[in-house]
């Protein structure tokens, strides 16, 4: 059975200005950030005066003459945004990035994982505040449209968020301005006395198509709480490794060793990044000039033995195809933050890396013998002293 969708929206209002304001000297003048002749963003007060991103600077200054203007740094804002997206990746398996300051997250099952959806939102908000000093608003609903409105209408007080149970009931009392309708459609709705999303939703679909054009049918569905746009996760990353042979190699053992060497280095990189693999692809360029491709699906990051087995199986499928291989390539595909169930494992991998770094420092500073690890000798031994022992920590 398909579960009803739950989508969260993260919204950081006036993202660019907020990034600037967290570092700059407090000033009571409105802030405008420019990128060439146009406005990249502005603070809340500038927005209240009618300045919108994309305006020409002279237009913006005409609306907001007392504004303080600073030159924006796109690369810096992108870095901050990436940091936020990476943080979100720790809390949800699917993240869809919007423009700076807006992102959608898969929220299904997160309530069970964190205690409740409110606790989940609180954890995200707290972590973003800690990492970037930016205050995010969060809304959770059954669709992207409702969650976006929930996030934008959620109060800015710390720890507040809106959890929507029934999308259509939440949307009904809101004004139609929230729908991305054309100016003409809005004017006609006003003339017809339709001021709220609920009133618009009550119209029959064929009437909407007839009166306002079929292009508005989709917004009509959104008004009814039936926004079926799926979440589009981030593009999978691919990690590749290649090896070339000076002389065509046909021995299975040599090919296997070459693959394992490539695989181990790639896996080390993966473990440092705390990422999960979904598919392994093998590409072999044959002495005849032909290129063969094989692939295998992997549920979790494989260990040495599993990797050897997978490579051996893939090489078996190549046997008899050629007199030799001149180049080999492997790809680890689908490197995403692990899915919901694996979040704690993901966090553990990072914690473990940090701990090992700290222990290395301790061993250097004090003595390697002072950092120990218990090991099992004979757990069933009659004498307690023979069951377990301490050994120097393997760093």
């Amino acid at each position, binding site marked *: 059975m398909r579960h009803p969708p739950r989508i969260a929206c993260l919204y950081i209002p006036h993202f660019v200005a907020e990034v600037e304001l*967290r570092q700059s*000297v*407090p*000033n*009571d*003048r409105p802030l405008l950030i420019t990128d060439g002749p146009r406005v990249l963003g502005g603070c809340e007060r500038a927005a209240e005066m009618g300045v919108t991103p994309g305006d020409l600077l002279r237009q913006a200054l005409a609306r907001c003459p007392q504004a303080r203007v600073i030159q924006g740094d796109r690369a810096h804002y992108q870095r901050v945004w990436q940091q936020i997206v990476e943080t979100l990746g720790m809390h949800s398996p699917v993240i869809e990035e919007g423009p700076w300051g807006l992102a959608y997250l898969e929220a299904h099952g997160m309530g069970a994982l964190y205690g409740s959806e409110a606790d989940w939102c*609180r954890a995200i908000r707290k972590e973003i505040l800690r990492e970037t*000093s930016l205050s995010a608003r969060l809304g959770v609903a059954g669709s992207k449209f409702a969650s976006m409105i929930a996030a934008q209408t959620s109060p800015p007080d*710390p*720890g507040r968020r809106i959890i929507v149970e029934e999308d259509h009931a939440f949307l009904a009392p809101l004004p139609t301005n929230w729908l991305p309708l054309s100016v003409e459609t809005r004017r006609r709705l006003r003339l017809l006395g339709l001021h709220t999303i609920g009133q618009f939703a009550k119209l029959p679909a064929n009437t909407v198509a007839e009166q306002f054009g079929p292009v508005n049918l989709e917004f009509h569905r959104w008004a009814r709480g039936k926004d079926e746009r799926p979440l589009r996760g981030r593009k999978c990353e691919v990690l590749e490794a290649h090896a070339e042979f000076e002389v065509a190699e046909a021995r299975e053992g040599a090919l296997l060793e070459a693959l394992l060497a490539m695989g181990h280095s790639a896996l080390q990189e993966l473990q440092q990044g705390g990422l999960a693999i979904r598919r392994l692809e093998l590409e072999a360029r044959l002495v005849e000039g032909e290129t063969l491709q094989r692939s295998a699906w992997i549920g979790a990051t494989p260990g040495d033995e599993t990797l050897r087995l997978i490579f051996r199986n893939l090489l078996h499928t190549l046997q008899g195809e050629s007199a030799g291989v001149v180049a080999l390539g492997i790809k680890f595909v689908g490197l995403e933050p692990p899915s919901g169930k694996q979040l*704690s*494992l993901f*966090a*553990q991998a990072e*914690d*473990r890396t*940090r*701990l090992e*770094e*700290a*222990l290395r*420092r*301790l061993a250097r*500073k*004090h003595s390697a*013998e*002072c*950092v*120990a*690890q*218990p*090991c*099992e000798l004979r*757990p069933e031994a009659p004498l*307690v002293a023979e*069951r*377990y*022992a*301490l050994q120097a*920590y393997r760093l």
Partner: protein
Amino acid sequence: MTYSLLTIEQMFYIMSLREDAMSTKSRKQLLEYTISAIQKRWGHQAIHTAVEEAPLVLSTGFPALDRALGTGGLPRGRLSELIGCGTAGQGTLAIQAIAQAQRVGQQVAYVDVEHTIDLDALARAGVRLETLVVLRPLSLSHALEMTGDLVAAGAVGTIILDHLHDLALLTQSEAAQGLDRALREWTPQLGRSLCTMIILTETASPGLYPSGLALPYFASVRLECERQNWLRHRGRITGFIARVRVLKNKLGPSGQEVLLKIRIGG
């Protein structure tokens, strides 16, 4: 009027002068500027907004004790002290806390000050020994230094300091001063890394605790363990009843008492 160039002292002066005349809005603005100035001068971590949130806790592994603490366990990011004399159950409480910490995916470090770690008891309590880090310092001051480094790294979820002996602390004033200094340093660092620190203190006799130590002031939770009765089965001692009293609890009610049944040797 621009407040950005004023110092904090000047801002408070303006606030005091204009207290009556200022509107609520301008007071709010002035407060915001003051907060920004404090953050600019002392960093973002220097000032926080109070948010109503349930405290993060680490279960003790004994539901009755978790309930008695009122918050569901020992607080994370703070220091807890388990006090007891001889076989009173404080070691078992610490071991159970380790198992619970590992169960929720935390990294645990055990500072074995007196080299008396009971690996068998740890294994029996369900602690995953392969992921446990044991620090074996040469002395108490060395233990404090090593623990300080570990706390500063912020890489561990739970640290057990096993154990401090009250008489040793009383007779070695240098060690007591070192502990005082260390606790002062650790407290804010623990708060930042949300690390639970559990210090086991062994007293010479039940109910006695030396005065003049800094530990009771820095600990957010202090539990006193006392052995009540031995449990026997066919004449053999199989365990004991421990009475655990909440001496101090900054996050919940104190003064509660619970009786825990503690088994010896599995």
